[in-house]
């Protein structure tokens, strides 16, 4: 029952600390909201498309798409303009096929171009179809024919930078979601135990017959409860406010984040034993927290040297990042995420044992 008393006490303290609560719940939402603003700016910046030998009907249709400007160029001039950044894409019409080259330095511009081109071709075809249909005096619109016709036109895509999968924002959102959970739980749980140590209450607590494991589990329960709430809020906010499409199950996303939060909690408590003050706890952020981002999958792992890649295997964020990306972007099933989750649980068990042993520093039994 001591575990429950500790849980109750820690939770009470947390709930009365309004500022920390705000940090845990509002700060991630605030940052995610800022990101939405920052990233949605891209879709409203205008995209410049160079057209080479494209029929004027399609060009005017392209121009009608908002934030798209077209410029007619000769082939060589168009390629020069693409290289020096004057235009974002070159559309060339040759042998009734479209050859598109994207600068692709900004994935959102590439996507805007693709979407605009696609819709313009459809609109353009529909116009042609309509005209031919009118010629036949037909009143019945033939839907299947329209789509099949637009599909018949071939678009060849080429990229100056990266490939068609380059979509930075989509790539980082699932990982960022996990990272926020990790970061805030790590920091706040570490601070809580540190505070208990510097205020002397930990010694006082250890002067009672409480077991060391009861203290660790009491903390885990109360912060686990908080982590569930935080995870729910971050995940739901990401899905609704950021309109991030989750291909797989939302439940898995929450599950992964929750396990990650427990790891962060155990990790924070462990790190706090190496800190003498809050300031020293903050010093772990660049040492311990930031590397988690580098190896979480935000930066493509396959481009890293083999030795460097090895570092990622000891960082919990890598496993969470893999699993989250898999569920959000590729719709992984439980069978595909079970291994990263098991690895995270292994981290949790090891860190928890280390914490229980670590409290020996303050009481020898």
């Amino acid at each position, binding site marked *: 029952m*001591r575990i429950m*008393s500790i849980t109750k*006490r820690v939770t*009470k303290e947390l709930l*009365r600390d309004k500022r920390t609560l705000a940090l845990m719940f509002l700060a991630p939402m605030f940052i995610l909201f800022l990101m939405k603003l920052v990233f949605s700016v891209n879709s409203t910046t205008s995209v410049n498309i160079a057209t080479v030998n494209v029929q004027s009907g399609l060009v005017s249709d392209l121009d009608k798409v908002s934030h798209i400007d077209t410029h007619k160029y000769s082939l060589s001039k168009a390629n020069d303009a693409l290289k020096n950044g004057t235009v974002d894409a070159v559309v060339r019409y040759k042998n009734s096929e479209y050859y598109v080259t994207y600068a692709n330095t900004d994935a959102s511009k590439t996507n805007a171009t693709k979407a605009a081109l696609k819709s313009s071709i459809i609109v353009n075809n529909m116009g042609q179809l309509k005209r031919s249909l009118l010629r036949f005096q037909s009143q019945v619109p033939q839907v299947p024919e329209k789509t099949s016709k637009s599909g018949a036109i071939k678009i060849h895509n080429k990229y100056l930078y990266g490939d068609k999968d380059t979509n930075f924002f989509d790539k980082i959102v699932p990982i960022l979601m996990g990272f926020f959970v990790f970061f805030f739980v790590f920091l706040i749980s570490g601070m809580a135990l540190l505070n208990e140590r510097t205020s002397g*209450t930990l010694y*006082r607590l250890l002067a*009672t*017959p409480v077991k060391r494991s009861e203290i660790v589990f009491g903390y885990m329960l109360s912060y686990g409860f908080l982590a569930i709430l935080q995870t729910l809020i971050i995940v739901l906010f990401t899905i609704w406010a950021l309109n991030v499409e989750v291909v797989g199950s939302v439940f898995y996303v929450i599950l992964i984040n929750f396990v990650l939060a427990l790891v962060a909690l155990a990790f924070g408590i462990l790190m706090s034993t190496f800190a003498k003050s809050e300031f020293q706890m903050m010093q772990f952020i660049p040492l311990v927290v930031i590397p988690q981002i580098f190896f979480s999958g935000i930066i493509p792992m396959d481009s890293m040297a083999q030795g460097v890649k090895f570092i990622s295997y000891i960082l919990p964020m890598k496993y969470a990042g893999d699993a989250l990306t898999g569920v959000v972007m590729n719709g992984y099933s439980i069978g595909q995420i079970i291994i990263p989750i098991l690895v995270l649980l292994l981290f949790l068990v090891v860190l928890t044992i280390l914490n229980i042993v670590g409290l020996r520093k303050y*009481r020898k039994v």
Partner: protein
Amino acid sequence: MNDISVITLNNVVKRFGKQTVLNHVNMQIYPGQIVGLIGPSGAGKSTIIKIILGMELADEGSTNVFGKQMPNRRLLGRIGYMAQSDALYESLSGRENLQFYADMKGLNKRSSDMQIMHVAQVVDLTSSLDKRVNGYSGGMKRRLSLAIAMLGNNDILILDEPTVGVDPALRRSIWAELKKLRNQGKTIMVTTHVMDEAELVDEVALLLGGRIIAYSDPYSLKQYYQVNSIEEVFLKAEAINNAYNVNY
């Protein structure tokens, strides 16, 4: 008085790095006594307390409490401890603090309610029990801290500077309570800087430079050093000790 000591320190040596904090300390504390541990800061008072509680391990020698080797987690249920710092949960109320430690001591609901009422009365905090601790004055915090130490069925009370920042009237009532507990057969160990408090204890242990240089009742000590107060005993003992160190 009982012959069997409740706390026994046997040739205890404790070093932190190169510094020897406790140098062959021997101590036998018997039940039904109030023992005052006095000595300048850095003499090793807190280290003795930590070793008795099992928070630190002695490098040499042994420590027994209730005849059992320390450290021993279960025995902590019979020891009440009040640290030098108040060590309270500031965002909780006085009652919530007491309730939490009562749970940690393993008291059941009924006896914890009773005990909380009792200890709050002893330290005169009954009326502010439901206020949050961060609104308490320094003296109130000290009293709450003492109340927490009194919770539970303790046979030993270890109090590190219990009456700092407590006004004289309340100090008197706290001492009255300590004497009552002593008369019930409990053992109380008190560290203090206040020398006139040292007159109130049954036995004085003078700790200097990691050694117990005197251990006796206040009256005999004063006679031995031929002075009128414990304060003078302390000063004289310190002077002799220093002279001894200079000579060798």
